[in-house]
């Protein structure tokens, strides 16, 4: 059964009543952050147009999470001291908190569940990026925060179909993602990627959102750095599922894609993946700290 057989993805997105919005200034900032020609002053000039965003950015920059040895009082200082990559991560996470911190009935996630799930995956991805010598850990963090943004758009569509999708998973022996596509016509990754494109997010984030459950499906023409990013987000997502953090009715109904071992150049034998999981379990305090910092900002 497909409930939206005649709708294009764009039509489906336009019909959704709970489509997440992001503030206009945040959108402009996001575009500017991806413009290599944009300078710190231009960025500061845009952010100051939104006093609430300024307050949030400064509060987070001065929180214990970033352990700076001086107080940051202005946006231009924040840009200068933190650098564009870290500031980008902070701003995307602020934007995401507003979007993700809501109940998603369709996936049986109460308010805060998706946020907790996203923060866990983001912190795990940053650690894995560091371990795998991936150059931009903050990008891995941001991609993980945003990876399930499509679930919000899917909420009203999937509501009430959870058991039907689950039955399809077991009868067809397919992942929740494939079952979702069979029943609804689209899956949350495709919808998430379209949302990200609408928001003009960079290609790296769009790809990570679309392929985080199936890195082996990523086009072979994708840049190696994009492939690595998607694989890191996939592995962080697998570990997040294993913890159960903020999980909904789709549970652990997604497979580990062994393609990631080739792309990331890792040998999964000899307990390596178990050892990494043990290490990640020890950073729960960091996850709680990040979650609290952004929730209170």
């Amino acid at each position, binding site marked *: 059964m497909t409930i939206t057989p005649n709708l294009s993805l764009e039509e489906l997105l336009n019909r959704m009543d709970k489509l997440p919005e992001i503030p206009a200034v945040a959108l402009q900032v996001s575009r500017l952050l991806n413009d290599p020609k944009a300078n710190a002053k231009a960025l500061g000039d845009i952010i100051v147009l939104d006093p609430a965003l300024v307050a949030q950015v400064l509060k987070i920059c001065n929180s214990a999470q970033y352990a700076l040895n001086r107080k940051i009082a202005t946006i231009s200082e924040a840009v200068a001291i933190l650098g564009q990559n870290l500031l980008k991560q902070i701003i995307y996470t602020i934007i995401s908190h507003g979007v993700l911190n809501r109940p998603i009935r369709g996936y*049986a996630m109460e308010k805060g569940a998706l946020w907790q799930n996203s923060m866990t995956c983001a912190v795990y991805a940053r650690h894995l990026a560091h371990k795998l010598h991936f150059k931009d850990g903050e990008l891995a963090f941001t991609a993980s925060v945003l990876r399930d943004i499509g679930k919000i758009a899917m909420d009203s569509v999937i509501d009430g179909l959870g058991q039907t999708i689950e039955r399809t998973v077991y009868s067809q022996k397919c992942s929740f993602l494939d079952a979702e596509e069979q029943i609804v016509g689209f899956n949350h990754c495709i919808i998430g990627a379209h949302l990200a494109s609408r928001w003009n997010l960079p290609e790296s984030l769009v790809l990570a959102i679309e392929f985080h459950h199936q890195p082996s499906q990523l086009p072979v023409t994708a840049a190696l750095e994009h492939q690595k990013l998607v694989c890191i987000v996939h592995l962080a997502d697998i570990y997040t599922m294993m913890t159960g953090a903020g999980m909904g009715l789709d549970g652990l109904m997604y497979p580990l894609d062994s393609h990631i071992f080739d792309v990331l150049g890792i040998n999964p034998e000899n307990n390596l993946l178990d050892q990494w999981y043990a290490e990640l379990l020890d950073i729960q305090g960091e996850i709680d700290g990040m979650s609290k910092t952004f929730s209170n900002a």
Partner: protein
Amino acid sequence: MAVQASKETIVATGEFYLTQNPRELLKALRIATSIVVVVYDPTCGLGGMAHMAMPDSHIMPTPGDCPGKYVDLGLPLFIAALNQAGLSKTRVQIKIIGGSQLFNFGGGSGNLLNIGTRNAITARTILTREGLPVEKTETGGNKPRTVIMDMTTGHVQVFHPGESARSL
């Protein structure tokens, strides 16, 4: 008559907890591949819950910040604490819950990260070795579970996200 619970205690990963307070609820939230062992002794109203995430500490050079996350370290400590508190091995009610698995119908990733299954096996092996009979288990599957034990009676409830609670 049921006693109204006045306290809720969440037992997080790597922790165990004992109590004889009949007005307390013990909870483990959204356990996925982790394993939870719940114990209740009706003779003295002693109960407890242990929440562990990995079967074997020997995969690491040191147990790290939270040794209780390993079944082979955390469960013996939990049992020792129960024994010290006066647990009766003949009347005790023990249940094992959790040990979910990543979806692997295609078999592409083989037995990699099958931690849930190994957690359940290790927990049962240790309990058997200690002479503690397991009354009931609910393990495996591909969904997380929330576990609640009511210390008034030792009644245990389990539920998946979006589903009703079931007695175990």
